[in-house]
């Protein structure tokens, strides 16, 4: 089985948020509760201040702290599904320990005060336990993998668009949106990215483009000191996160 990984080239990323929008549409997330987001950072001060940004999906960590803490095994790493970390919405009890334990802040309870007004949970009131009934809801639903419209009282996160990726032919080294044979299986954020800053492929396949990019262009994992070992790698001179500084 493949080990799916993502490579994000920050020298190409323009911070346009097209990936975020595509993800929100694909996965019917509520406004502000974006499984994929672009984070902006300012580093340093005048006259050498820098503006940085980086897209942030779930890192699908190889040693995911969210999995270790989950008391019900609702969060699990599925090695038969490319090592993607899923949440079983039928098992999650909404204790939010995983939100505490994920160093990358990529988990969403969403059953909370709206981040953006108007509250779409009221405008499109949810039925059948869903938090909301989005117009034009995506047809894909798999509660055992946290795919679909998020129900009440559970946590959600990026699934690497497993509902697409799982349809890919066995053994392909990369899922490249430029390949007409494969374009439908590519995660929504990768497919949408206008400057082609995102790449998706098999980290276990020595011939994959993602492995070449990581090896040849100094791929790094963010916050690697946490030991979580993300399956998402970043390229480019700006990859890194400044320490937190409260606004003075």
């Amino acid at each position, binding site marked *: 089985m493949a080990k799916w990984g993502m490579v994000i080239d920050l020298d190409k990323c323009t911070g346009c948020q097209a990936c975020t929008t595509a993800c929100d549409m694909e996965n019917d997330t509520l406004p502000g*509760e974006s499984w994929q987001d672009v984070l902006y*950072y300012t580093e340093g001060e005048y006259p050498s201040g820098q503006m940085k940004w980086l897209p942030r999906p779930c890192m699908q960590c190889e040693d995911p702290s969210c999995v270790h803490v989950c008391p*019900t095994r609702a969060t699990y790493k599925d090695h038969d599904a490319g090592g993607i970390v899923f949440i079983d919405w039928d098992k999650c*009890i909404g204790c939010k320990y995983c939100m505490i334990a994920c160093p990358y*802040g990529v988990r969403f309870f969403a059953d*909370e005060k709206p981040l953006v007004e108007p509250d779409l949970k009221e405008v499109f009131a949810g039925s059948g336990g869903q938090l909301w009934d989005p117009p034009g809801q995506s047809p894909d639903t798999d509660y055992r993998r946290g795919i679909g419209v998020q129900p009440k009282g559970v946590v959600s996160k990026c699934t690497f668009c497993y509902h697409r990726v799982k349809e890919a032919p066995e053994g392909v080294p990369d899922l490249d949106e430029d390949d007409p044979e494969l374009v439908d299986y590519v995660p929504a954020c990768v497919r949408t990215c206008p400057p082609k800053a995102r790449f998706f492929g098999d980290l276990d396949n020595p011939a994959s483009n993602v492995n070449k990019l990581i090896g040849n262009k100094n791929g790094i994992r963010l916050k690697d000191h946490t030991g979580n070992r993300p399956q998402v790698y970043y390229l480019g001179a700006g990859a890194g996160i400044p320490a*937190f500084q409260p*606004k003075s």
Partner: protein
Amino acid sequence: MTAQDNQSGNPALFTPMLYVGAAIAIIAFVFSGFMLMTQGHAAFNMDANVAWGLPISTYVYFALMSSGLTLLAALAMVFGFKQYYPLVKRAIWLAIITLVAGLAVLAMEIGHTFRMLWAIPLNLQVESAMFWMGVFYLADLIFLLWKFQRMERGDWSSKLSRQVGIAGFIAVVLAAGTLALVFGMMSMRPFWYDPTLPVWFYATAALTGVAGLVFFTYLSYGMNTERMPKALRMDMEGPLPRLFLILLFITLVMFLARLTTGLYANATEVNVVWADYLLASGWFHLGVWGGILLPFVLLLARGLRQSPAIQMLAAVLVLVGMFIERLYFVVGGQVVPLFKGTWERDLVAYVPSPTEWVLTVMGIALVFALYALGERLFNLSDMPQAEPGEAEAEPEATAEARS
């Protein structure tokens, strides 16, 4: 002796306390249940940044108070400090009801309470500290109830009763320690990350346990030590306030060590939390200086220490102060935004919502109601009748404790 001829079970106080407490708890339950049904968890102010707020800190507060009371009871039940026997039954009852109150608040907070009942046992995630916390607190509750039942039957020191007491002690040490590790093992949350956190939890648990016991014992006797059985009165004048003072001292020293380390550290997730969140809040100052330092000073002088009014004041200060400290501890681990960039430019602002406060009131009301119920149904000041040969052992043990 039954509850009727026990002076502490004062019906003029405890009957209204039972009904008023129960009424408040039920109203709070119905209100928060209604808010949860209509608004979902939007009735709370927690979000993706502060995932654990006031309900969790209330649970931690009660669970640790329960653990502290059990540790206190273990002084007599496990370690043979017999002079604490007059306190044991009340301490065990309080340990049961504070744990029940904490669990009730927790049950209202999580996303799927009923699912928890099967999903945790059926999936046995032994890697999760939260799993073990559940296992150990459940064992703790079972042993507490069992021990209380033995004491109710007058069986204080049969082999079985002693074994249940020891099992309860082991369970509570594991439970409170694991609760600490739920926070203390989170290396991605440097403010909490601390292998010695269980020690801080044990010390503060014991402190709040003693404070709770002082508070409720005086409540039962209307602040009047004359009405207490002699052995209990002796405890309230000597060993218990002394233990209270020692625990305040230990807590104070540990707090100062935590404070110094926190302020000295360069790591922002630690330093900023202490300097710009905890110490920037008047409430936090009130909690730690008013809730640890002031009671310590009050109890320092022997004359004051023996005064029921001063003990009661110190107990109330500790109970309020540590409540504040628990809230700031739980929230403090989350106020530095994690991987949010300029979406969160400053420390995360979190203020509990009215529904969260109502849940806390529910827990407090439950404790008062169940305590009154306990006073009505049982003789909480009961203690073992002196057995032959114990008369000599007693002064010795007392002397030991006083030294």
